[in-house]
Each structure stands twice: as C-alpha cells, then as structure tokens.
C-alpha cells in the first residue's frame, strides 16, 4: 500500500506545458473580465449621491455575518426557498474555499516557500468535505428548479402591476432566462465535477494511491464503479477526463467572469446591502439639508451610492411583492418592480463610459425604467417591504424621497393638496380651528390639566384623529377616564399641539414636516413633564424616532404599555372577564415600526378575551391602507381596498366577536370596511381602550351584549 501521507491529486496530470499555459491564459482573461465588471459597477455606485451611514462598522459587520450564516432573513415566510438557499450557500462557500485552498497550495505557498500541505489526511478529509458540499449545492439547485418549474409560487411571477402587456418594459422573459441559466450553470459545474472525478478514478484505477482511497470521494466513487460496470476502459476514461476537465474548468471560469454582469453579483451586493443596513430605515426618514438645492430624488444620480447598491442586491425573490398591501388590491405598485425598474434605469445610464446628460437621468415618468406618479402615490409606507426583504433593501425612504420631488412640483391628488394646505394653516388635517382641538374635553365630568400651565408626570399627545374625528373622540374621552380612574397625573397641550407630522413626512412634504416637528418640540419645551403617552401609533413613531433629529429627545410610549402597567399594578382593576372571542390587528406603526406586539395581547389576556390570531399578524400584519398620507387621498372607485381585504381575512375566523384595533386611523378605516364588506352585525370593530373600559364596569354594556348573544 502507498504511504497514506503521499496521497494527493496531481494537478494538470499529463498536461503539456502548452496546455497548462493555455489554462492560465484563460483564467487570466476570466479574472480580467471579472475585474473590469467590478470596476464598471463601482464606477456606477460612485456616480450616486453621498450616503449617510448610521451605526458603527463593527456592529453592522457582525449583524451581516450573523444574517448570512443563519440565513434568518432568507428563510422567513418561505421555508423551502430558505433551506434550499442555505444548501446552495454553504455548498458554494465550501467549494469556493476548497478551490482557493488548492490555489494557495499550488500557486502561492508551493512556488514561494516550497511548502505543500494538500496531501495525506488533509487531502482525504478535504475530498470528503468537498464531495458533500457538491451534494448540498446540487440538492439546493434541484429544489430551486423544482420550485421555479413546478411549484411556480405567485411571487416568482414577474408580471408587473404597473405596466400593461405590450409596454416596452413589460416583458420579463430575460429575467426568467437568466434565472434558469444561473441554476443550470451551477448545476452543470457540480455534475461535471463529479463525472470528472469519476473519470479520473477509472483512468487511474490501476494506481493504488488513487483507487484505494476512492471512497473519500463517495459520489465520484459510486459513479466510477458504475462507469466500470458499464465497460468504460482506462484509455476511454482518460479521454473523457481530458474533455470534461476543460469543459468544467472553462465553465467555472466563465461563471466567475460573469459574476459582475449577472444576477450572480448578488453574492457581493446582497452582502454589501446587509452590511449597510439601517434598522431604522423606515422609522426615521432622512431629512433634507437646508443647503440642498432640490428636495427629493429626481435624477438617478440623486440616489445615494448605498441606494444604487440596494438596487443591485435585489434577487427578485418577490417577498415584498407578496407583502405589499397596495399590490394586493391591484394598485399599480410593486416594491419589487420599483427596485427593478430603477436598477434597469441605473444600469442603462450609469454603466456607460460618459455620464449621459441630465435630461436622460430623470427617473420620473412612464418610459422604460422610470417610475410612474401613480406608482409612488400608491404606497402606504406600511414598511411591509422593508421588513421582509432578505437583503436589506430600503424601499420606503426611496419612495418617499421620490415623492418629495412630486410634492415640489405639486403633482398630487387635489384632496391631498387641500389637506396639506389645511395642516399648514391650522396645524391639523381636519382643517378645523386650533381652538377646537381640545373640544372633546368639554364632555368630561372632570378637568384635564393644561400641561402648558402646570407641571404633569405624563404628557398625553392626543393627535389629530383622536382629537377631531367624532367616533375617535369618544375613545379619547374613554382613555381620559381610564387615566383619571387610575389616578395618573397627566395633562395635554390644548391648542399648542399640532399634527405630529408622521404622515406629512411620509407624503414627502418635508418642509411642512419640519415646521410641525419644530412647533411641537417648542410646545414640549414650554411644558414640564416626565414622559409622553399617545394613543396614536403614527405620532408615537415620529416623536420617538424622528424628533431626536430635530433636537427633541423624549421618553414616549404607546398607551398599550402604560395601560398594561396600570393593570398589573392594580391601578386599573377589571371587575369582570369579558369572555369575548377577539382578533387583534397590529397597527403598522406600533407593530412593524416599533415592535409593540406584546402589550396589547397581554391586555387582551388580562381582560379575559380569547385571542384568535389572523394569518397575517405581528411583523406580517396587513396595513389598513391609511398610511403614507393615503387616508387623505380617495381610493379608486370600485377597486378593492386593503381594509376590505383585511376584513375578509378577519371574517373567516369562526365565531369572531370583536376585531380589536389600537390606532385611531384603524378604527375609522375598519369600521368603514366592516360595512362595505357586508360584515356589519356579524362582529364589531373596537378600540382596545373601549374593551378595557367595559371590563372595568360591573355590568355588560348593551353593545357587547348584542354581539355576544
């Protein structure tokens, strides 16, 4: 038997020097093509605007590595694709490291130091690991083929809601061909690798240092045995090995060369995108510096280099397309297509040697690669796309920045225009007099402290809907009673409160937002309090996450956490269990935006409600359709609406009695939707505050009794 330590694979065995030279020449060309492609991409990104990257590099790097290794984001809400991708990822990484190891031995430490380590036990274990890696890779690839070819999930259908058949950029067959070419290329590299391995074994079957150790390459060994059984001779195997060697080698080199030119580049761009991820991307939108000449994104070069990189990270996985409430009701928006359109636009304009003139860089419009006005105004800024994206693409800030340009041009729905003017004039979206803001307090049997005049523990930021909308005013009064009953020292700002600006900012009216935020911060400064509470998740989000950028740092909570504490401390004591079968709707700005999933559920538990979750809950909650200023814009007549879609989901829960919300806009949206979907009388929509108040009363209120009956 040959000494185990000498066992290895001779590279270029029986190759003429000319053949070896030819291989290195081809490899050199491949690396040059790869390098040029990388250069073109980097030049493209450098043509973008400056990017503001928040957070330390180390923390972001750690998060990226964690995400890559765990595959957490890829596996979310698509287990099959996630596991298959994990196999491909680990298989690919191992095979890449393997090839690099051989290069290190043969081309670096060998020639330079005369040291070789790729033999003996190391070589044998190496062979085994790589054989397994090839199995992982092939298994993953085969599942992906099965998924694309047979399962055909709707999110992988590239049909566009924002284009019509026949439009220049409607056809996505190029993407489909690329997907298949990618899968087949990798699979062919893997298969030819195994057959090549087997052919070598058959060819060198006479050599014990090869044949006796064949089971360290189990897949190759099985194929080799099969080949011999079928009568493959050693000379024939040698010929097969020669041709397959070149096929496998050139295909692998071509794959590497084409990385920057194809979807394969996502191995770099997705990692880069994850490295630059801003966990607050949707919660805290970027401001517009006073020095900036134009507000918002008009030209492709107005995108930051980070955003350009984001575009290239997209793998068309369709998770955002599936999650988008606008897309779900047939609006001309798919977050995926916004990203792909802009990517196509960036590739067409920014990969050229010379930067085209500004006129050709405008991203607004209906030409191929441009984003239509209707598309931008369809967005509810619900954050579903940002939240689900496995590669940290930040669609929402980009859409808002593009809207800023529309706002500057006045390209908006007339009703939205009226609302913004009303907010500018009166500080509220209802166009009511400032003096009417505290009108709801007049119906209370107790006084509400004026936080402008006396110091309070808790400042209650009421918000527009809770202050002015008649239905919500009742809830607001009820909440005041709860605070009063619990003996909380609280007050409100009366006329000095303005619209918090969360939705104004998401509309893209940054100047008005700055005015509102500054006005509220000034009112806060003029009063004395320890912390803020609000029943409005929209106000909660902007005060918590965006006011700090304007110098307003406050401790603020949504009422759900406060009430939960009051219940736990027995300062609010329910007199009875409600015993209702309920479901809970997570408001976007409380749930996804600020992770406030648990407090409302805990309260429902304490009230003795049976909570039945909808399929889409917590992080995957489905927007009511009111966000991003859409509540100030009419929905198309006759079209489906997100709130209706949601009501149908809730109605499918057997025996549902109460659809519980914890956001003033949700109450308005869903009470309308309840009627519009014909579910009135089957169950009711209620604010959680109303249920709490009911539980504090000894007797059943008539409204609940009717439903429970």
């Amino acid at each position: 038997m040959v000494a185990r330590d000498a066992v290895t694979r001779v590279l270029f065995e029986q190759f003429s020097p000319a053949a070896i030279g030819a291989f290195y020449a081809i490899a050199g060309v491949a690396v040059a093509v790869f390098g040029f492609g990388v250069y073109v991409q980097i030049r493209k990104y450098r043509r973008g605007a400056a990017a503001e990257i928040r957070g330390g590099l180390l923390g972001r790097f750690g998060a990226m590595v964690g995400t890559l290794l765990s595959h957490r984001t890829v596996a979310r809400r698509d287990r099959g694709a996630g596991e298959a991708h994990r196999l491909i990822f680990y298989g690919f990484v191992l095979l890449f490291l393997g090839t690099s190891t051989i290069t290190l031995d043969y081309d670096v430490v060998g020639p330079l130091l005369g040291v070789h380590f790729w033999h003996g036990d190391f070589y044998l274990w190496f062979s085994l690991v790589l054989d397994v890696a090839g199995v992982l890779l092939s298994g993953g690839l085969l599942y992906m083929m099965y998924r694309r070819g047979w399962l055909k999930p709707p999110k992988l259908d590239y049909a566009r809601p924002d284009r019509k058949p026949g439009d220049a950029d409607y056809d996505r067959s190029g993407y489909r061909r690329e997907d298949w070419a990618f899968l087949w290329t990798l699979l062919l590299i893997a298969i030819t690798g195994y057959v090549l391995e087997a052919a070598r074994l058959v060819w060198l079957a006479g050599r014990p240092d090869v044949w006796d150790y064949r089971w360290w390459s189990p897949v190759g060994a099985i194929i080799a045995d099969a080949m011999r059984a079928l009568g493959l001779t050693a000379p024939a195997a040698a010929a097969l090995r020669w041709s397959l060697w070149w096929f496998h080698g050139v295909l692998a080199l071509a794959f590497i060369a084409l990385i920057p030119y194809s979807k394969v580049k996502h191995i770099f761009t997705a990692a880069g995108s994850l490295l630059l991820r801003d966990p607050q991307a949707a919660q805290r939108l970027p401001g517009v510096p006073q020095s900036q000449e134009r507000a918002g994104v008009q030209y492709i070069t107005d995108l930051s280099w980070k955003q350009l990189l984001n575009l290239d990270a997209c793998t068309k996985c369709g998770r955002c397309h599936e999650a988008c409430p606008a897309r779900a009701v047939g609006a001309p928006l798919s977050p995926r297509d916004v990203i792909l359109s802009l990517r196509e636009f960036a590739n067409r304009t920014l990969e050229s040697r010379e930067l085209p003139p500004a006129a050709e860089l405008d991203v607004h419009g209906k030409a191929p690669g441009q984003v239509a006005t209707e598309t931008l105004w369809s967005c509810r800024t619900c954050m579903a796309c940002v939240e689900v994206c496995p590669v940290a693409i930040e669609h929402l800030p980009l859409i808002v920045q593009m809207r800023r340009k529309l706002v500057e041009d006045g390209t908006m729905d007339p009703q939205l225009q009226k609302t913004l003017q009303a907010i500018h004039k009166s500080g509220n979206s209802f166009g009511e007099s400032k003096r009417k803001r505290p009108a709801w307090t007049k119906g209370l049997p107790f006084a509400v402290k004026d936080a402008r005049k006396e110091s309070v523990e808790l400042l209650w930021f009421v918000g527009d809907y809770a202050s002015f909308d008649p239905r919500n005013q009742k809830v607001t009064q009820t909440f005041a009673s709860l605070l009063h009953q619990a003996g909380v020292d609280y007050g409100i700002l009366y006329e000095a409160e303005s619209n918090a600006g969360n939705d104004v900012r998401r509309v893209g009216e940054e100047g008005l937002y700055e005015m509102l935020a500054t006005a509220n911060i000034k009112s806060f400064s003029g009063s004395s309090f320890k912390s803020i509470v609000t029943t409005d998740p929209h106000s909660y989000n902007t005060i918590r996450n965006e006011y700090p950028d304007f110098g307003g740092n406050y401790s603020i909570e949504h009422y759900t956490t406060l009430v939960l504490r009051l219940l736990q401390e027995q300062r609010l004591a329910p007199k009875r269990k409600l015993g209702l079968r309920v479901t809970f709707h997570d408001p976007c700005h409380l749930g996804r935006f600020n992770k406030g999933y648990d407090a409302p559920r805990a309260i429902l538990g304490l009230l003795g409600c049976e909570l039945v979750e909808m399929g889409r809950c917590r992080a995957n909650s489905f927007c009511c359709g009111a966000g991003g200023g859409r509540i100030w814009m009419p929905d198309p007549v006759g079209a489906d609406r997100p709130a209706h879609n949601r009501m149908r989901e809730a109605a499918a829960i057997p025996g549902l009695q109460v659809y519980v919300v914890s956001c003033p806009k949700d109450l308005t949206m869903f009470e309308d939707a309840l009627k519009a979907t014909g579910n009135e009388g089957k169950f009711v929509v209620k604010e959680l505050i109303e249920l709490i108040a009911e539980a504090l009363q000894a007797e059943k209120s008539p409204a609940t009794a009717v439903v429970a009956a």
Partner: protein
Amino acid sequence: MKVLVAVKQVAALDEDFEIRADGRDVEPDFLIRDLNEWDEYSLEEAVRIREAGTAPVEVIVVCVGPEDADEALRKCLAKGADRAVRVWDEALAGSDAIAIARVLAAVARKEAPDLLFAGVQASDHAFAATGVATAALLGWPHAAVVAGLTYTPGAKSAVVRRELEGGTLHEMQIECPAVLTIQLGINAPRYASLRSIKQAAAKPIEVLGLEELGIAAGEVGEAGSAARVRRMYIPDRGRAQMLEGSVEEQAARLAQIIKDATGSAR
C-alpha cells in the same frame, strides 16, 4: 411681456370670534389670514402663460395691505410669481373697493402690463368691484368672471370665455391691455411646498408708498371712499332650536312645539 396679478390677503373667521370694540369689524385676534382663493387661480393662470414658453413673460403680483400681507405675497412667489409689490400707507386704512382700485391703477400705469388679472371677488368682503373699477380708472377694456382664456404672449388681443347663468359660456375677444377678473375653476392651482415658501422668503418684496405712485392721501382711505362701514354685527338668531335628550324626550318636546304652534290641545 408682463402680467400684473392683483391679490388680496383675506381674513376668515376662527371658531369663536368677537366684534371689535368700535363695532365696525371683527376683533383681529379672531381672524385667520390667507391668500384670497380667487387669486390662487388668477396667479396660476398668469404663471401658466409664462410656462407655455412662447415668449419671455414676467408675472408680477401686487397687493394693497400692511406688512402682514407679505405672507400672501410670499405664497405667490413660491407658486411662481417673478416679482412682488406691496403698497401701503396708514392713510389706506378704511379704503373701499374704488379707493383700492385707484392704487392698483397707479401700479398698472407704472408697470404697463399687457394683462391685469384680479379675482372675481375677495372671499371676505365680496364686493366683486375692485377689478372692474381698476379697468374703468385705467380706461382699459375688461371681462368679468373669466372661466377660460386663450392668449399668446405678445398678441394684441385675448380670447376669453365668461361664465353666464345656466351654464352658458360667453366667448369674446378683448383688446390688450385689458383687465380680466378670474373665476374659480379656470385651472387647478399648484401646491406651494413649505420648502418653496421658505425659499421665497429670501426673495425681496418691493414696498411702495402713496407718494411714489403719485396718489394724494385724500384719494384713499375713508376720506377717499364713497362707501363706509357703519357696523358689523351678528343678526338675531332665528327660531330654530336643537332638541336634545333621549329619543323619547325629543319626540315629546317636538309634539309640544307642534301643539303650541297649531294651537291644538288634543
């Protein structure tokens, strides 16, 4: 080519309000001020003529009012006016529509525009007289309640469509220079973003006094006005009343009122 647009900073009543001590106006604290709604449309029409781009056009807004009227002018600058002029003198207080028209006519003579736009009326005092009075003082032709306009910059005449009763339109040709009072709905006024309003704050507003326009103090203000406000008041309420309470209480009360009114005692 120039278009002069006369605008007004109007007052709207807040939720509750009080009449001024002298009883001739509302206490200013209770007024919310804004650009007159009609003027948004006339300004938009002027800016659109410029943006049609067939020849260079300058859009000038003019306002008769104290310093706080600058806010309305800034809004006009944000919406695309090239230049703003404000005329004020303490002597102007109490001017009627004709006295204001004297000032506007003087500005028009100074600027020599091809067209002068005014709103059909101001939403607060609703005289609907200032525009046409200015035309009379200038001796220019005028068209009132213009709901449609076709005009090529530099042309000697314009075609206007005026809104008449019953939805009919009155199309006429008018020689320039002319005064047009613009009706709501002639166009869709653009939105002035807060950013553009802030940027407009940096643009200068030309302030003129009466002397510079060659107007004597006696020609304006109460002295130069033929109409003077005697008093402003809220008329006594009518006999309508809200019925409150439960449905039963409301019904009983309603029945009582009917009985009282008809004199039946069944």
